[in-house]
């Protein structure tokens, strides 16, 4: 039997689906094979394997670039080399099933949780907690950037009546075990931060005129804004802290006055009515 002709007949018999499954497995899970010639033609310049390798290289490079773009702070925290090791393992374990690259990192926090080095140890180290918090936060920033909301806001000033002040529609409050938002801001502003110590932190991530803003809060401010977001009423929020948490009314009012000036400037509010 003519073995060569038999081999080429075998090659031409591959179905459309078989060819695609073969090529995809070569991208997502590249392994040494000896069947490149069964699928890919060699040319005068490159072998079948070299032709395929162009796709293999760009597959992983493109997705790595995308992971770095979605997790700039985590990649800074881990260092690029270690970050890419995690990213490669993640992409192997959670290959993309979405039509959009925007979803690429959606399971990265979960993956880091599942693979933390002290997963089975009784006493946990704290640095993996920071990395996981940071990963989850960074992915949320991506989501909130494109969140659907009407931002045709009324401008608010100190003259806007308090009953008309509402929080802007894209307004998310976060409490972290580490100073995650501060670290994030340092990285995106190229200030090269060092790894932080554990310290509870609070922040708000908001959007006005389609631009994101990220602001640090203290503990009281965080709970105040959480209640305000729930009630959308400054009066009710103040009352809640006075009656339920025994805040001194005058003291709260004097804090509120300071917060209000700052938060108006930072674009926390929109107004339900036209300005006088």
């Amino acid at each position, binding site marked *: 039997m003519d073995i060569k002709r038999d081999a080429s007949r075998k*090659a*031409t018999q*591959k*179905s*459309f*689906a078989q*060819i*695609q*499954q073969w*090529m*995809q497995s070569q*991208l*997502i899970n590249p392994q040494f094979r000896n069947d490149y*010639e069964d*699928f*890919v*033609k060699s*040319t005068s*310049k*490159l072998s*079948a394997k*070299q*032709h395929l390798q*162009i*796709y293999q*290289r*760009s*597959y992983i*490079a*493109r*997705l790595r*670039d*995308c992971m770095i*773009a*979605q997790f*700039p702070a985590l990649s800074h925290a881990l260092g690029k080399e270690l970050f890419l090791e995690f990213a490669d393992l993640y992409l192997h374990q959670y*290959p*993309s*099933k*979405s*039509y*959009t*690259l*925007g979803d*690429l990192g959606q399971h990265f926090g979960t993956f880091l949780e599942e693979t933390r080095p002290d997963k089975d140890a009784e006493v946990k180290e704290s640095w993996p907690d920071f990395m996981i918090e940071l990963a989850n936060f960074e992915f949320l920033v*991506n989501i909130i*950037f*494109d*969140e*659907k909301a009407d931002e045709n806001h009324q401008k608010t000033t100190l003259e806007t009546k308090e009953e008309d002040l509402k929080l802007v529609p894209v307004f998310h409050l976060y409490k972290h075990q580490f100073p995650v938002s501060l670290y994030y*801001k340092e*990285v*995106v502003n190229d200030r090269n931060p060092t790894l932080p110590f554990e310290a509870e932190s609070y922040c708000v991530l908001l*959007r006005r005129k*389609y*631009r*994101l*803003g*990220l602001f640090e809060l203290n503990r009281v401010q965080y709970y105040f804004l959480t209640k305000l977001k729930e009630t959308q009423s400054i009066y009710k929020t103040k009352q809640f802290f006075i009656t339920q948490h025994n805040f001194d009314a005058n003291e709260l009012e004097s804090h509120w006055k300071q917060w209000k000036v700052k938060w108006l400037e*930072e674009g926390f509010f929109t107004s339900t009515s036209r300005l006088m």
Partner: protein
Amino acid sequence: MKQTVQQLPDLGLGLGLRGEHFNHILEHTPKVDWFEIISENFMDSGGRPRYVLDQIAEKYPIVMHGVSMSIGSTDDLNFEYLKRLKNLAKAINPKWISDHLCWTGVLSLNSHDLLPVVLNEESLKLITTKIKQVQDYLERPLILENPSTYLTFQQSTIPEWQFLKYMVEETNCGLLLDVNNVYVSSFNNEFDPIEYIEGLPHKSIVQMHLAGHQHNGDHIIDTHDSPVVDPVWELFSLAWERTGGTSTLLEWDGNIPDFNVCHAELLKAKNYMNGFEKQFVTPRVTVSETEIVSNPVDFMVTNVAKDFVE
């Protein structure tokens, strides 16, 4: 279908809309004939990209160019994706919708690359069936682009230009002829780019793409990160003559320069509209040391960190 490919307008010379140029376009309303958007960058956006697009679409004709339809996949069509595509089209009213003759993944996975299709009777049958499904669903002709390819399958029996011609005959879809991709693929797969362009059904070419690439000696990568090279202008001039002129667009996706630099590169096209035979240019090739990824990531991902205030 409400509209045929032949009814689609000649939009003139356009540019790929990129986030880097948003502010310039909003502030200066530059004299560009039209813009092409990457559909995926806007179809899920309720934020700034979509807000900016709505303003630009009021002032310029827009064409939607996608990368995720995966028309050449043996998987079924993703109707959730098509629904979002159609919704965006309803909102911004593009002149047409295009994607690539490629597949992005199978078995529900996505490689996020524009992968080459095996070109034979089996794939032609499946792809033309899927094109008809898409056209029925979108209620408009689908325009498909020849991708840059880096390999040829053993099982391919039909040259790509002929495959595109059969596709057009079977489905009445339109073609987006990327002359840079013809050049890149012809070098990588050793076919004659002139024969390719001569063989296409010229009346169905709705649009052309121009772009720069990176030459790596034994292969070329379609990087969209540099000016158009002379041999590609040469192919453009041939395609221009054969089509009688058609909507033309410059793609620039990596190392994106100022808006005016991109625009000036696009306007060079006017120098190549005087007939192929009269304008022969000797190919000059520069070889790069390092390899860059094709279709750089910013093409498909918004860099949120770059857009942060405070």
